[in-house]
């Protein structure tokens, strides 16, 4: 698969909302299976259970039941951060309290786990972002060691890069990570309010973003992902939005949330007279908006899934872009112009 030379960005409309409170509770990440089951990784610091993986059907928003639970036993999670599907269809979850990576089936059966707390090669101190490369090696963001490690799928050390700081190739409590189809790696450098791009071996390529809330600026970026066009999506958690950058790192647009009621949310409301009236009395504009999104994912169909952390749901958008060849669009000019024909 090769990247298009350029894109006609026709639009990126809101598609639908999945889940509701008591089902998708404080989702921090999301994974969607080929049979369109939506898995939401949920985490909150409660007194009782504080983490789980919720399962919701894409078509009718049906609650398919939780898997995993809070704890430190096999298949359990305490402070889960990110979740992936591997090629075998199993879920891979990072846990920054237990300093380990856990593998479970989509039915919740324990498959395996690895990870030891520390700062040596292959050891982890609060692992957060995880991403596979084409060979199913796992890049792990090793947050409190301020580095990225590349490990085999069974946890053997391959390479690492990064030290604490704000220079190129340095990190301050990094969070998210993504690998594109060319093997390049993107890391959201949380406390430096930027995303850095590296080669597969950790050589710095470029960075995007700066501190702030303006277009293209970031306030504590969490998850990051890349699609087949090379577009870079950043969960700009502190600004309650997701930003889209093109493959060169140029800011394209932002998503602030456009939620409508999910099917389950709609059914709940129609069965409860009091909340119906209270909602009717309220200014509902804020309910559309994202609240502190901590991840963003895209699938092969151009769908963007945003776990809407503060609002107990996943907001989904649909990319609509036409790939362009070199013959269809002029080369990038050196400067902007006012002449359009």
């Amino acid at each position, binding site marked *: 698969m090769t990247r298009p030379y350029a894109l006609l960005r026709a639009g990126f409309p809101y598609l639908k909302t999945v889940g509701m409170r008591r089902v998708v509770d404080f989702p921090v990440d999301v994974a969607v299976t080929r049979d369109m089951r939506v898995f939401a990784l949920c985490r909150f610091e409660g*007194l009782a259970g504080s983490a789980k993986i919720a399962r919701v059907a894409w078509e009718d928003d049906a609650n398919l039941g939780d898997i995993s639970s809070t704890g430190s036993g096999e298949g359990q999670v305490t402070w889960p951060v990110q979740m992936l599907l591997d090629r075998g269809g199993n879920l891979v979850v990072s846990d920054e309290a237990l300093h380990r990576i856990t593998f479970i089936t989509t039915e919740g059966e324990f498959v395996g786990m690895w990870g030891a707390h520390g700062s040596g090669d292959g050891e982890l101190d609060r692992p957060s972002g995880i991403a596979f490369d084409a060979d199913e090696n796992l890049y792990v963001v090793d947050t409190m060691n301020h580095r990225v490690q590349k490990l085999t799928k069974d946890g053997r050390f391959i390479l690492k890069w990064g030290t604490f700081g704000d220079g190129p190739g340095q990190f301050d409590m990094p969070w998210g990570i993504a690998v594109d189809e060319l093997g390049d790696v993107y890391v959201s450098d949380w406390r430096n309010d930027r995303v850095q791009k590296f080669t597969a071996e950790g050589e710095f390529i470029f960075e995007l973003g700066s501190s702030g809330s303006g277009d293209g600026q970031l306030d504590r970026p969490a998850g990051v992902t890349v699609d087949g066009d090379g577009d870079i999506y950043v969960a700009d958690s502190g600004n309650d939005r997701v930003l889209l950058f093109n493959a060169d790192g140029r800011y394209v647009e932002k998503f602030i949330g456009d939620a409508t009621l999910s099917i389950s*949310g709609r059914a709940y409301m129609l069965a409860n007279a009091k909340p119906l009236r209270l909602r009717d009395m*309220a200014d509902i504009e804020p309910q559309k908006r994202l609240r*502190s999104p901590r991840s963003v994912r895209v699938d092969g169909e151009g769908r963007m899934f945003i776990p809407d952390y503060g609002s107990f749901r996943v907001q989904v958008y649909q990319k609509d872009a036409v790939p362009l060849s070199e013959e269809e669009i002029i080369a990038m000019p050196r400067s902007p112009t006012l002449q359009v024909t």
Partner: protein
Amino acid sequence: MGDRDLALAAHLMRRAGFGASRGELETLAARPYEDVVGDLLRPERFPEVEEDLVDRYYGWDSFHGPPARWIYRMVNTRRPLQEKMSLFWHHVFATAFFKSEHVASLNRQLQMFQRVGMSDMRTILLELSRDPAMIYWLDNNENVSGEPNENYGRELLELFSMGAGNYTEDDVKMAARAFTGWTFAQPIPLYPHGHYDARFEYRPEEHDDSVKTFLGETGRFDGGDIIDIIVRQPATAAFIARHLYNFFVADEPQVPAWPIEPPRDPEAIRILVGAYLDSDGDMRTVLNAMFTSDFFKEAQFRRVKSPAELVTGVLNLVETHRTPEPGIGVYQAAVTAMGQELLNPPTVEGWHTGKEWIDGGALSERVNFAVNEVGDGSKPGIQAIVRRVSESGSELSPEEFMSVCLSLVGPLTVGDETRAALMAYAESQGPLRFHTEADEEASARRIVRMVQLIVSSMEYQFA
């Protein structure tokens, strides 16, 4: 720096904060006392708690999140008096979760206390009267022209400013009418997508704009005018002074007894009232007068620690949770088990304090909590105590062993009975030795045990 300086610094930090580690106390005790108080009164000189870090690791939560995060703030703030004043106002303006179950507005109220809690009485009461959690708690959302609801007007006078006996029923009615139309916009309901904040809304069409006579003054008063009159009253100065004395200095009788029982230290109240009236109710001025007074300095261990003070004091002793770690909810649960569920006080009167914190169940919760926390020798604060004890000599007599531990845990002054019990333990295995590795291991275990005995003493229950 002498032991008295250290004891005074520890006293100040227990009262104006939530305790401090030994290292922090030594730094503070080396400075002029007035400078330390000056820093406490100017929280803006110090950075805020790193909220981005708290958000990242503790995240949001339904109910238990805000009080658990508050405990984390109490332990980690570099602005301890700002946080302690938030707890003070939470005691005075007690607003509970159980009525509204609306986390967002309770959280907003707490943030309001953090923001304006050290400003002046007028600002504080005005913010309180515009606070959605308070408006709902005392039904001011149902207080409309022609059908006044007197709940807020009454408690504003009785529990929040002047105290019973200093106003008439007519004053209550007039205050209530003045606050008609002070309500909040309907927030989006909890289901299906979580809490949304409520915000103050003034509805002129629901406000009673008629002429009112309140505390002898007449005019077309609204809520702001009522507050202006209230904050000028000597009764308000005396009521707030007594609250401050009870919270920061020494235990007073419970609030309902105040109209009939005189203050424990009338001269102290007079000093605080003077500071209030001279400064138009400026809290920093009143707090400065209190913390620099002799009556404050002499009041060591004359208050029973509230559960929040006990738990945060122990956490500062063991020096854990200095960054977000899993399990902060355990401490929220511990405070609750001891009788102080933060953000959920039992009534608008707040918690009964002093000896009423202690009953059989609460005492065992308090002692067990402290003993368990300090019993883990791997905790940084306990390791520091072991290290400091070992640095005070290669062999310590039982008397020295006990004394140095009492100093490091407090410094704590204990009575004869406790001293005898601690000495009995200290003597049971002879001198404390650090000659060999085996000595060090055995002595470390004995030090941990001694610290456990100290925190289970009656004296440790006092701030």
